[in-house]
């Protein structure tokens, strides 16, 4: 049995079985990651290219560790988007790397749809490590993993996703994945951050955080790109913190047993206050830990799944 998809480009293509398989396999890798020798030969001899067209220290480190622990050979490449001015198009870049016989591309890009464009120019498997404002499926997998480990289930949970919804690939992946697993996402943010068509996802959207907080099992805070948003969509860090930041008062409004997640890096003092970020309810470091295990799972299942390729 393998995943129903050849590539991991988005969460909308994944079935509940696919997601369950990734999370279950992720558990096995979490066990590997807790050993003294955190390495298995599962992908020995496979070549994985980390093509990061947009800088990202955290996600790239997580993928690199996952690859090393699977014994894959990996190569890090920077690069740029297709551009006549810069010379080589992305298609040429991918064809060039593919000609060196690689098995997988892990791609981070600032433009939506870039991973799909890569699939059209290579036979290798492609994992989307975040494409523009579109999707970030491995982030969703590690989020679901973290939530499932805490609650023992996903079905029936309510998850408030708070922040810059319209520019968020994290929300773009997490919302459909939660729906697939039977959870109920609720979008919360100022109208200037709300998505144009929440009905497409079949979710509710509101600006009233205090009304939502007592109703949910998970408060998922999105990172706000202050440098891009200040004055454009929100007036200031101070005002955002007052209206949408989770401080001790709001934390006390949360249900007993509920948790706080954040994809990192956190803007302390903006979307989350210190005392909350450092409280046991915040699962931010668990998410990071889960990231390596679930990425190992995704790569193992995708590369193992090429049953009769050679």
């Amino acid at each position: 049995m393998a995943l129903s998809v050849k590539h991991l480009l988005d969460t909308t293509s994944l079935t509940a079985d696919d997601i369950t398989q990734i999370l279950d396999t992720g558990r096995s890798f979490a066990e590997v990651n807790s050993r003294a020798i955190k390495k298995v030969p599962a992908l020995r001899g496979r070549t994985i290219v980390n093509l990061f067209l947009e800088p990202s220290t955290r996600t790239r480190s997580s993928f690199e560790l996952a690859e090393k622990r699977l014994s894959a050979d990996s190569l890090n490449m920077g690069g740029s988007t297709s551009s006549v001015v810069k010379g080589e198009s992305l298609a040429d870049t991918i064809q060039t790397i593919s000609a060196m016989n690689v098995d997988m591309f892990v791609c981070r890009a600032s433009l939506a749809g870039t991973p799909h464009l890569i699939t059209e120019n290579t036979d290798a498997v492609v994992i989307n490590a975040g494409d523009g404002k579109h999707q970030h499926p491995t982030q969703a997998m590690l989020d679901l993993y973290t939530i499932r480990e805490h609650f023992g289930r996903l079905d029936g949970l309510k998850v408030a996703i708070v922040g810059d919804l319209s520019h968020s690939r994290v929300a773009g992946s997490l919302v459909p994945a939660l729906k697939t697993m039977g959870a109920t996402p609720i979008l919360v943010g100022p109208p200037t951050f709300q998505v144009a068509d929440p009905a497409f996802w079949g979710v509710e959207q509101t600006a009233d955080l205090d009304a939502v907080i007592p109703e949910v099992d998970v408060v998922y805070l999105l990172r706000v790109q202050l440098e891009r948003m200040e004055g454009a969509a929100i007036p200031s860090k101070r005002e955002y913190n007052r209206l949408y930041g989770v401080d001790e008062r709001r934390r006390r409004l949360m249900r007993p047993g509920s948790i706080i997640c954040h994809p990192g890096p956190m803007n302390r003092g903006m979307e989350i206050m210190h005392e909350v970020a450092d409280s046991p309810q915040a699962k931010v470091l668990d998410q990071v830990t889960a990231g390596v295990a679930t990425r190992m799972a995704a790569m193992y299942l995708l590369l193992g799944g090429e049953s009769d390729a050679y």
Partner: protein
Amino acid sequence: MGAEGPKAQVMDERDMERTLTRIAHEIVEANGGSGSVAMVGIVRRGSEIAELLADEIESIEGTRPPVGSLDISFYRDDVARSIQPVLHATDIPFAVDGRDIVLVDDVLYTGRTIRSALDAIMDFGRPKTVQLAVVVDRGHRELPIRADYVGKNVPSSSEEDVRVCLGRTDGRMAVEIWEGKEA
């Protein structure tokens, strides 16, 4: 083709109980007691057999050796050809360093599973010895591996499937030969 039932039964429940008792005695004898012995079953059936052997050793020695389970999925050399969902996480709740580790599996066949298991167990530390106990040795080895404790040698054709049935997993205890390769 499984619906027609087994071609032959090689061992019944009584045979298996006697065999496990014998193997437990051999383990205790070979290791001069059970003080340093730990059992590591290869999932899934090896894990259940390891538990049964530990029970037997406890009834002989009065103390039960620790039991762990090992999922060798990530160590297989045929990942590209067949992939199984990984649902049985490895669980070795003791330090392997300096111990006499008895790897336990149901059927010894090509030896590739055991090779993977040896790789895996070494990632947990440096055991004093690693020994191998199996219920059935059906031959057809592809690697230089042999078992220290064997329940029964069952010469078989590679076109046959030798199955060890266990109470917890299969609802009955038996060793059967089925027509056709393993599903």
